[in-house]
């Protein structure tokens, strides 16, 4: 299977980049750790949760989901950079499967997520995060997070191939990911939002992801306006449906975009 081995070469290239410029890895882990500390100590004191163990129990799943959601931006800007340098043209002129480059890139970004999630988990533990479910559920939650990041990196592929400039890519990806992660139950209960916004926030895939992770880590869920609805009752299933929808739309679109890519 050449397509697979070609993708692995591309994934290795990304790992090699990290080895050559270790600062990239250092800063992409420092940032989420900084978020953990800021949210834990800045908001943690003023948000009332009735949650045993405090705000940090609710925060960690939220911040995990936010971090993997930012994979979208990482994938998009990495690809835009390759476009700009003409590397995409070179890859496209090689006798390799045309899906290999984008497949390899999405895998590489997922590998990076493993490292980032591990470091964040440790940081969370240090500041008091204690999941109460079993080991199996915890592992399942992390796999879930990785898969969510993987699905979103296909959106990143599409954005990266569509934009003409790497700076635009940064802006577009943040325009997508910021409202998506903050208009959710990730950092604050949705019940404080205006009612129409609550509906949006609670149907948001980020919310169902956060709720699913909270469940897997052994917490109760709080949905306001949509309590009793399908996403609020089945956050895990709903998140899987969302991921499937994202992949079904963006995998073929990204592959097609790559095949026709020309700058």
């Amino acid at each position, binding site marked *: 299977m050449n397509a697979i081995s070609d993708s692995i070469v591309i994934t290795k290239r990304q790992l*090699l980049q990290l080895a*050559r410029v270790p600062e990239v890895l250092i800063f992409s882990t420092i940032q989420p750790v900084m978020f953990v500390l800021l949210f834990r100590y800045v908001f943690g004191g003023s948000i009332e949760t009735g949650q045993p163990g405090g705000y940090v129990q609710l925060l960690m799943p939220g911040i995990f989901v936010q971090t993997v959601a930012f994979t979208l931006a990482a994938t998009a800007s990495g690809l835009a950079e390759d476009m700009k340098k003409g590397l995409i043209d070179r890859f496209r002129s090689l006798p390799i499967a045309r899906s290999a480059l984008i497949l390899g890139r999405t895998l590489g970004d997922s590998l990076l997520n493993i490292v980032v999630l591990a470091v964040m988990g440790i940081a969370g533990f240090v500041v008091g995060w204690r999941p109460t479910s079993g080991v199996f559920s915890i592992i399942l939650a992390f796999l879930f997070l990785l898969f969510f990041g993987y699905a979103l990196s296909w959106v990143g592929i599409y954005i990266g191939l569509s934009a003409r400039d790497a700076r635009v890519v940064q802006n577009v990806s943040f325009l997508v990911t910021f409202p998506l992660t903050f208009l959710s139950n990730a950092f604050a209960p949705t019940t404080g939002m205006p009612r129409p916004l609550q509906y949006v926030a609670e149907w948001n895939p980020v919310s169902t992801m956060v709720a699913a992770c909270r469940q897997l880590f052994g917490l109760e869920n709080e949905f306001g306006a949509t309590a009793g609805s399908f996403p609020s009752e089945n956050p895990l299933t709903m998140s899987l449906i969302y991921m499937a929808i994202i992949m079904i739309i963006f995998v073929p679109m990204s592959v097609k975009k790559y095949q026709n890519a020309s700058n």
Partner: protein
Amino acid sequence: MKSVIAENLVKTYNKGKVKALDGLSLDVEEGTVLSVLGPNGAGKTTTVRILATLLSPDSGNATVGGIDVIRHPEKVREIIGLSGQYAAVDETLTGWDNLVMFGRLYHLNKKAAVKRADELLERFSLTDSAKRPIKTYSGGMRRRLDLAASLIVQPKVLFLDEPTTGLDPRGRQEMWGVIEELVKGGVTLLLTTQYLEEADQLADDIVVIDHGKVIARGSSDALKKEVGGERLEVVVDQANIAKTLEIVARVSGNKATLDEGLRRISAPVSTGSMALMEVLRSMDSEGIHALDVGLKRPSLDDVFMSLTGHAAEVEEVK
């Protein structure tokens, strides 16, 4: 045998508003070098991108190594090498990393990929910088590495899209040396350039394109002849101008013209060096000393001017 054939390629951008190629046809004989010469925006890069399977034409046909580029692009990719206008290599990785990676993507095993990378680095005088990130390379080194990456599996046909654009004169000289070596090795090469002297230096055949069409084709010599023959030029002292004008006019059988500022007398000649000798003999017998004398052949710049009616818009080196 023709290694590359393009027939009536048409390509438009922006929904037909910009016509990049307007019925372009060309071919390259196996083992020869064809230079596609033209100003910015003439359609050089579009032509290369179509032949290298990166772009589909709106209409027209093309084959590379006898394979149809539109119907079997994956087979064409196995026999071509492409080196573009920008050094398309991973800048954070070292030269060695890049070549090994591309070797792996050409499906060499690890050992063979390493061996090939070492060979190519040696051949392009990059061994000393092999373990440095490309970011630290000079423009010329990047281009050489980029070229090396396109030679990993001895391509049958090599496309070089403006291989020296943006290089300083030294980098350009080095690159020419490398390309001349390749040509001696017998590769079929299609090279685009906006430098007239580059086409003159490297190519067997030249096609001149403008606005997406071929406007002239031939060897460098043939193209120059098309524009007109040689001119004889003599520079003399002020006192000898009148007599020299007479001699030059008589020998050439044409009207001689004078550039007063330079004190240079010139006339078109058809007999080349014979005419030159005769002029010098006549001047000698009159006791006239020539300060400078020579036969000037038209440059490719002149060719371009007379073919297109406008000068080649060559961008300044950055």
